[in-house]
């Protein structure tokens, strides 16, 4: 009797799980935390699925981890935002087709008390230098994400390598996603670099406010990367290609541009004229 009940429970639960998983066709999209946390994917994916019947399962990681997931063959398509890491990925032969789908910008946010006195500027490098010389608290993602890479590039221009920054007491490497870094910055009254989409969708700002914006160096480009069939060798690449084509199609671009949070557009579609 007990054995029978076990079998029953097992069958029912497994059936329930399978019902949830039984999609006609599905692909795994390795993406960055910013496109997931901003709510963009949750907003546009149902439109793609309605049109094609293909379900897109999003695994949100930093750009570095997302590319690694694809290298191991665990993703069918990639959507990331770190030009240098992407070039490396292409040079290694994992992909031959990279297309920009949208852009927005990074901003420097920080406490409204603004201990480094940089509020309202547009020069991000000058701002970082001021933060360093004021020894004001700064939170770094420290997770090889696209935002982390962009931050370290700016620091390099400002004359500081990551090796030089890490021992500094005011430089906090939190090793986490964008939201985690914003939570930390909010708690520590620290400055941090964030993409604008995650910032607008973030609900625990505390005393944080936008400090620096509008620097041309702060442009943040999102690329969809199709994988090389010779390296990947999985049949789902057709469905993945359909998704990439949809993202750059007028319909996909329109969906990306239409996504708003509190009346603000988060991503500027740019497939037709890459920035």
């Amino acid at each position, binding site marked *: 009797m*007990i054995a029978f009940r*076990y079998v029953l*429970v*097992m069958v029912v*639960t*497994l059936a*329930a*799980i399978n019902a*949830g*998983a039984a999609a006609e066709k599905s692909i*795994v999209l390795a993406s960055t*935390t910013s496109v997931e*946390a901003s709510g963009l994917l*949750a907003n546009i994916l149902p439109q793609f699925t309605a049109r094609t019947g293909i379900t897109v*399962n*999003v*695994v*949100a990681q930093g750009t570095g981890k997302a590319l690694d997931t694809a290298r*191991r*063959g*665990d993703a069918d398509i990639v959507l990331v935002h770190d030009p240098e890491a992407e070039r490396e990925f292409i040079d290694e032969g994992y992909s031959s087709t990279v297309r920009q789908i949208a852009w927005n910008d990074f901003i420097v946010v920080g406490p409204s008390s603004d201990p480094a006195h940089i509020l309202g500027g547009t020069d991000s490098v000058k701002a970082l230098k001021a933060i360093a010389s004021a020894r004001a608290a700064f939170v770094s993602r420290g997770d090889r994400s696209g935002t982390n890479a962009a931050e370290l590039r700016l620091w390099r221009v400002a004359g500081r390598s990551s090796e030089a920054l890490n021992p500094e007491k005011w430089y906090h490497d939190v090793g*986490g*996603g*964008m*939201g*985690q870094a*914003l*939570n930390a910055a*909010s708690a520590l009254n620290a400055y941090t670099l964030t993409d604008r989409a995650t910032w607008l*969708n*973030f*609900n*625990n*700002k505390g005393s944080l406010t936008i400090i620096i914006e509008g620097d041309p160096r702060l442009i943040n480009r999102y690329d969809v990367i199709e994988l090389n069939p010779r390296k990947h060798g*999985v049949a789902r690449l057709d469905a993945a290609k359909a998704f990439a084509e949809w993202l750059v199609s007028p319909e996909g671009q329109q969906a990306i541009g239409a996504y708003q949070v509190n009346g603000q557009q988060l991503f500027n579609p740019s497939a037709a004229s890459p920035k």
Partner: protein
Amino acid sequence: MRDFLEIVGLSISVSLAATAVAAAVSLPIGAALAIFPFTGRRLIVVLINAFFGLPPVVVGLVLYLALSRSGPLGFLELLFTPAAMVIAQAILAIPIITALVHRASERAWARYGDELTTDGATRLQALPQILMIIRADLVTAVLAGFGRTVSEVGAIILVGGNIRGLTRTMTTAIALQTSQGDLSLALALGAVLVGISISVSATVFALAGRARTAGSDEV
């Protein structure tokens, strides 16, 4: 709201499935370890007890590498599916259930072992009877395993990928909501999770108490 129910449902069904798998493995092994003498038995028991504290994130990482398409079990295509989460949670629950079943079986065997084997019955035939004798403890053991699985996040976020509508459970959703700064939503989900945990413990105590007053053996 649909999302919310989906998340709660997935959490419970994955944990139930994992607990069922773990129980199916642990019950016979736990009892067998008490009944059959063999060299190295002590070592295995010590190891199982040590695995009580198996760090979920390590289990998740090892399973991730094994299930990756470039890993040894990649052909199964299980990574980022609910099945992968069931496996991870079952691995975490097995030591707990096995150890608890073994402990109870050992006492029951010491007390009834001779009796159960006097009329020519083999030890193998005595095994289900031992499990029958300790059934109250089995409930406790299985529910302890369920408690471990339903509250776990480190392993399933790695092998499940926290995919919306597919592998997002209560614990991984709490991690995500926290990361988006939606602390009140995270807290609400946390309250539901705690509610389920408390219900599980309450059930354990109720069942164990009832079994004891019904005259079951204090093993």
